[in-house]
C-alpha cells in the first residue's frame, strides 16, 4: 500500500484532537484531510483515491452511527475507524456490524489507530481494484454484438459448439467464429477465464 496515493479523512470537532491525529498520520507519511463536522466533509469534493475515514463525534450515539449509515446509503464506500471518548459495548457492536473497521476508545494507542487506518486503506484499495476490473469487463462486454452475447451465454452455460449451433440454427463453423471473437473481445485466455468474467458481470448486474 503506497500512502502517497491514498488519503485519510478526519472528522473531529475538537481542533486539538484533530491536529494531533493529523500530525500522527503525517509522521508516518499519510496524506490527511480533516474536517470539523460531517457536514463540512460531505460538502467537500472527494478526490478519486483510496481513502479511509477517522470519525470522532462528541457523544457519538446516534449521530455517529447515523452518519455511517448515511455514507453507505449514498454509495460512498468509505472504511470508517471510530474514535470516541466514551463508547459503550452496544455502540461499538452496532458500529462494527454496520461495517466499521475499528472502534477505538480515547485515549488510544497510536499503533492501534495506524493499523486500523492501514487496514482501511487496503480495503479501500481492494475495493477500487475490484470496481476498476468490473468497469473494464463491462466495457469489453459492451463491444460484443448481440449474436456474440447469445453465443457467450451458451458457452459459459457449458453447451458444446454443436449444441449451440442447433440452439441458434447456425452452422457449427459460424458458432466457432463467434466464439473466438468473444474470447478475443473479452480478453479471456481460456474457457474458465470467460466463465469467471461472466460470473463477475452477473454478480455486478444482480447487485445493482
Amino acid at each position, binding site marked *: 500500500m503506497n500512502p502517497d496515493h491514498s488519503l485519510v479523512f478526519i472528522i473531529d470537532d*475538537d481542533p486539538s484532537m484533530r491536529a*494531533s491525529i493529523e*500530525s500522527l498520520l503525517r*509522521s508516518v507519511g499519510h496524506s490527511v484531510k480533516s474536517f470539523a463536522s460531517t457536514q463540512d466533509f460531505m460538502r467537500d469534493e472527494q478526490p478519486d483515491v483510496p481513502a479511509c475515514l477517522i470519525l470522532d463525534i462528541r457523544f457519538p450515539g446516534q449521530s455517529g452511527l447515523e452518519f455511517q449509515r448515511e455514507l453507505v446509503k449514498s454509495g460512498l464506500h468509505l472504511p470508517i475507524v471510530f474514535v470516541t*471518548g466514551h463508547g459503550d459495548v452496544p455502540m461499538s457492536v452496532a458500529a462494527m456490524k454496520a461495517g466499521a473497521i475499528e472502534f477505538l476508545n*480515547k485515549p488510544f494507542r*497510536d499503533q492501534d489507530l495506524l493499523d486500523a487506518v492501514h487496514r482501511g486503506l487496503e480495503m479501500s484499495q481492494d475495493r477500487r481494484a475490484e470496481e476498476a476490473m468490473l468497469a473494464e469487463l463491462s466495457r469489453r462486454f459492451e463491444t460484443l454484438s448481440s449474436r456474440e452475447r447469445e453465443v457467450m451465454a451458451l458457452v459459459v452455460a457449458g453447451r458444446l459448439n454443436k449444441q449451440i449451433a442447433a440452439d441458434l440454427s447456425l452452422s457449427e463453423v459460424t458458432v466457432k467464429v463467434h466464439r473466438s471473437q468473444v474470447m478475443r473481445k473479452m480478453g479471456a485466455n481460456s474457457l474458465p477465464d470467460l466463465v469467471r468474467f461472466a460470473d463477475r458481470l452477473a454478480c455486478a448486474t444482480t447487485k445493482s
Partner: protein
Amino acid sequence: MGQDPLFLLTKTPISRGQWRLAVGVLVALLAALLVTAPFAQVPLENTEGLLLVYATAVFIVELITAALLLALVSVQRSLAVLALSIGYLFSGVMVLPWAVSFPGVPALVNLSETGLQTTAAIAMIRRLGFPLFVLAYALLKESGPNARPPKGWQQNIIFGSVTGVVVIACGLTWLVFTNDDTLPRFMQDAQKVSAVWNFVAATAAGLSVAGLAVLWTRQRSVLDLWLMVVLCTFLIEICLLAYLSSGRLSVGWWAGRVYGLISSSIVLFAFLSETVSNYTRLAHSVSAERRAREARLTAMEALSASIAHEINQPLASIVTNADAGLRWLARSDPDLSEARAALTRIVNDGHRSAEVIKGIRAMFTEGTQDRVPVDANRLIKEVLNRSLSEVKLARVSIRTEFDERLPLVTGCPVQLEQVISNLIANAIDAMSTITDRERVLRITSALHGTDEILVSVEDSGTGMAPNSKGRIFEPFFTTKPDGMGMGLMFCRSVIEAHGGRLWMSDNEPNGAIFHFTIPSANSPATINLTHDHRWKVAP
C-alpha cells in the same frame, strides 16, 4: 433508646392538634353528660341481657389495649408501661365475673344466682384497681434509664405478669364468690347502692384525681394526654353511677356503662391512629428516600460523565500528540518543527485540562449566576415551601416572622438559597432526637442597623456542645454521623462573599440560633464589593 427518635405512643410529644382533639373529646363527653343528667333516674327494665354484650366489648377492648401496651413494653423496657398494661389486663379480666354475677344475669346463662354483694365487690376491685395502675404508671414513667430492667427480661416478666394477673383475678373472684356473707354491705337491694358504696366511689374518684394530677405535671407523650382523658371519663362514669343514677339499670347507670366503654377504648383508638399515622409516615419516607436517591444518582451520573468527558478529551489529545511527536523525532531525518508543534499542543491541552478542573471546582464553590437584587423574605419562603415534606416528616412546626419592609440585597440567589436550605436542614437534624418537647423551627427576618438585613434560623434541638461551638465553621468538622463537615463552612464563605456575617448563638431554653447579615442593595458596603469584584468564594 436515647438516640433513636422512635415514633411510639410513649415517645411522641403532644402536638397542638392532639391537645385540641383531647379537649374536644372531653367537652363532647361532658355535653353528653349534661344531656343525660335529667333522665338519669329513669329506670330501664329487663336490660340485663345487654350487660353480657357490654362486658364482652369491654373485655375485648381492654385485652387488646393490654396486648398493645405489652408490645410497647417489649420494645421500650419500661416498668411504667408494664404497670399500665397490667392495669388494663386486670380490669379486662375482672369484667367477666362482674357481668356473670350481676343480679338477673346468671339466670340468663343457666347459673345459680350469687350473693347480693358479689357484683358490687368485684366492681369495687375494678374501680379501685384501674386508677391505681394508672397512678403507678404516672409515678414510674419519670424513672431514668438506670431504673430500667436489663435487656432480655421482657419475655419472662411479660409472661410472669400476665400469669400473675390472671391468677390474682381468679383468686379474688373465688374469694368474693365464696364469702358473700362477710363482704361489706355495698348494696341495699339488687338495684340500690348503700352508703358504703359512696365511700368506694369517693376513693376511686380520689385515686383518679391523684392520677390526673401526677399525669398533668409529668405529661410528655400522647399516651399521657389520652390517659388524662381516660381518667376524666372514668371520673364522669363514677359520678354518674354513684351520685346521678337511681341505681342499677337506670338511664344514668347505663350512661355510666357507656362512659366506661369509652374510657376503655380511648387508648386503643390512640394506638390505632398512631399506627395509621406511623404507617403513612413510613410510606412517605420510603418514597421520599427513593426519590432523593434517584435524583442524587442521576445528578452524580451526569456529573461524573461530564467530568470524565471533559478531562478525557484533552487527555486523549495529549497522548496522541506525544505519540506523533515521538514519531516525528524517530524519523531518519527528525522533523523538529513538527515535534515542536506537537509539544506546543500538549502544553495547550494541559492548560485546557487545568481549566476544566478549575471549572468543576467553581461549580461546587460558587454559583454560576450573576448578582441580582434579591428579596430575602421571598427566598426564605421558597426554600421553606420546597422543604415542606421534610419538615412534615420530621414533625417540626414552623414559625416565621418576616419584616415585610425588608430592603432588597444584592447577591446570587442560588447561593443564598443553598445557605438558607442548609441552615434549615441543620435545624431539622438538630431536633431529630427531641421527643420531650415540641420541635420548633423559627425563621425571622429583620432590619439590622440601618443598612443590613438580619436572618435568624432557630431550632429547639439539642443545641451545640461548648467544645464544638468554636469549630463548627471549620472545614471537615461535623457533629453528624454522616456529615461531610462542609455545610456551615460553605454557608459562611457565601455570606462573607456577600459582605455579611454568619454566627451562632444559643437558643432559650433549648437549641441553637444561626444568624446572618447581608448589607442591603444600596448600602455602601455592597457598592464597594461590586467595584472590587470580590464576589468569588474562597475555595
